[in-house]
C-alpha cells in the first residue's frame, strides 16, 4: 500500500508541472484562489480559465483525474448554485413563487458561482495530482519556517506532519482489516437505523485507537532510542532546490496577475 491509494490523487509523471518546486506550486495555488475571488467579469474569468487549461495541458495528466475531483463535490456545487439562482434579485424576472424568483441577475450569479467552484477545485487538484504527499509535506514545512520568529515549533510541526502522512495508509489498512473482522463476527455495517449504524462504529473505533496509541508509544520509544531531540535543528535528506523553471513559472504568474489587474480595471 502506498500513499497513492489513500489520496487516490497523485498521478505519477514527469511533466513540467510535476517537476516544479512544491513550494512554488503551493503559493501559486493559493494565489490562484485569491484571483478567482477577485474575478467578477467575464474577461478576468476567461483569463483564469485559459491559465488553468494551459496548466492542465502542461501537467499531461488525463482530464478524468481532474473531473473526478469536481464530481465528488458536484452535489454541493449544484445545490449552492440553485440557492443562488432562486434567491437573488435584480434584472428581468422570469419566474416568481413566494420569496423565490428566477431573475437574469440570479442566473448570472449562479453560473459565476459554479465557475468559481470549478476553478478552485480543479486548481487545487493540479497540486494533489502532480505532487506526492511527501513533497507537499516538505513544502508546508518550508513555508512555515518564517513563523519561527513567532516561536512556533516549526520543526516539531513538520515532524508531526510527516509522521501523520506516513501512517495514514497504515491506518486505512487497519480500518479495512478491523471492519472485515467485525463483519465476520456478524456486524452488518450497511443496514439498520442511523443510531444502530453509529453503534456499529464502536467495535471499529476502539480497536483502532488502541492500536494507534500502542503504535505511537512504540514509535516514540524508537525515535528517542535513536537520539531524536525535538529542539535540535534538523538537516534534511530531501532538499528542495529552486530551479530556472521555477523562476520562469513565477514570472508567468506575475504577468498573469498584471494582466488580471488590467482586465479588472477595464471591466
Amino acid at each position, binding site marked *: 500500500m502506498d500513499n497513492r491509494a489513500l489520496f487516490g490523487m497523485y498521478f505519477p509523471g514527469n511533466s513540467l508541472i510535476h517537476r516544479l518546486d512544491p513550494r512554488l506550486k503551493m503559493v501559486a495555488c493559493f494565489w490562484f484562489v485569491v484571483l478567482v475571488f477577485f474575478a467578477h467579469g467575464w474577461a478576468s474569468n476567461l483569463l483564469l480559465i485559459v491559465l488553468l487549461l494551459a496548466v492542465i495541458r502542461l501537467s499531461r495528466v488525463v482530464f478524468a483525474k481532474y473531473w473526478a475531483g469536481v464530481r465528488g463535490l458536484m452535489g454541493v456545487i449544484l445545490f449552492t448554485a440553485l440557492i443562488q439562482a432562486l434567491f437573488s434579485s435584480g434584472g428581468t424576472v422570469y419566474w416568481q413563487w413566494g420569496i423565490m424568483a428566477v431573475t437574469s441577475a440570479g442566473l448570472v450569479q449562479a453560473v459565476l458561482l459554479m465557475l468559481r467552484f470549478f476553478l478552485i477545485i480543479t486548481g487545487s487538484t493540479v497540486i494533489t495530482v502532480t505532487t506526492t504527499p511527501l513533497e507537499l509535506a516538505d513544502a508546508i514545512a518550508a513555508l512555515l519556517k518564517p513563523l519561527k520568529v513567532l516561536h512556533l515549533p516549526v520543526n516539531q510541526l513538520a515532524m508531526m506532519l510527516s509522521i501523520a502522512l506516513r501512517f495514514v495508509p497504515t491506518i486505512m489498512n*487497519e480500518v479495512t*482489516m*478491523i471492519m*472485515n*473482522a*467485525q*463483519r*465476520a*463476527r*456478524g*456486524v*452488518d455495517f*450497511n443496514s439498520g437505523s442511523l443510531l444502530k449504524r453509529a453503534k456499529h462504529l*464502536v*467495535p471499529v473505533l*476502539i*480497536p483502532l485507537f*488502541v*492500536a494507534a496509541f500502542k503504535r505511537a508509544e512504540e514509535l516514540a520509544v524508537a525515535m528517542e532510542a535513536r537520539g531524536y531531540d525535538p529542539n535540535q535543528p534538523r538537516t534534511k535528506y530531501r532538499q528542495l532546490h529552486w530551479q530556472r523553471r521555477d523562476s520562469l513559472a513565477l514570472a508567468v504568474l506575475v504577468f498573469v496577475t498584471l494582466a488580471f489587474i488590467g482586465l479588472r480595471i477595464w471591466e
Partner: protein
Amino acid sequence: MVEPAVEYAGLGFAYGADRWALRELSTTIPAGQLTALIGHTGSGKSTLMELTDGLLLPTSGTVTVFGQQITAATKKKELAPLRKKVGFVFQFPEHQLFADSVLADVMFGPQNLGANPTSAKEAATAALTRLGLPAALFDRSPFELSGGQQRRVALAGVLAMNPQLLILDEPTAGLDPTGQAELLSLITELKAQGLTIIMITHQMEQVARLADTVRVLDGGQLVFAGTPADLFAQPDLLAAHHLTPPAAVTFAKQLDWAAADPQPLTAATLAAQLAKQLKGGTGNG
C-alpha cells in the same frame, strides 16, 4: 470420497480493474478435515478465504459453501446465513477486541447473529472454557490480558458463533513457542470435535503435523492439491513456488535415507524412525 465443505469452481477475483488476485481456481475443501492453505506472500491466500466468508464476492466463477452458492450476483442479504456457518479468525485477531470485558467481547458475535443475552452468554462461556481460559478472567478487560490470552479470547469470539467451518489466517503468528504449541493442540482438539478447518500458514512444520490435505497457491493460481506427504515428496515443486520443506524432510534427505517408509514429515516421526534403526543397527545413513 468425503463430502466437500467448500467447492471453488472457476473462481476469479480482481481488486479493481485489472488487478487479478485469483484466477480460474477450482478445488474442494473436504468436510471434517484440516486443510492447510499455503503459498508465497501475496499469492492470494487471504483473498481466497475472504471470498469463502462472503467478505468479498467473486469477480468470476463460484464458491459453494455447505451447499450455498456465491457468485458475482449474490445479494449482500443472502450472506448472513453464510456467516453463521463460517467462522473467520483473522491474522492477529486480538486487534478486533473492543468490549469492556472478555465475556462481553465473546458474546458480541452470537448477539449479532440474533441470539438473546442468555444464550449468547452460554455460548460465550462454553467457547471460553473450550479454549481453556480460566473463569477468573471473564470479567477482566481484554486489554489487560497477555498476547496469547488475547488471541484465545478472539478465537473464542468466533467459536461462540458455532461455525461449521473455521478459517484460521496464520493463527500462530507472533506467539511465543509455548503459546504456539498450545494453540496448535487446541486446533487439533477442535478438529477432533468434527469441525472443518482451513488454516493459512507459512510454517511447513505445522502443515506436516496437522494437515490432512494441502492446497498451494502461487500468483493467484492453484498449483498443488493433495496430502502433505505427496507435497513434501516433490522438492522441485516446493522450490518452484518458494516453499521450503520441513526440517525433518530435509534431514532425512541429507541422510539419503531412501529406506525410510513412510517418509518422515515431522521431527517426532523422524526421531522415532531413527531410534528404531539405530537400535536395530541396520541404518544406512
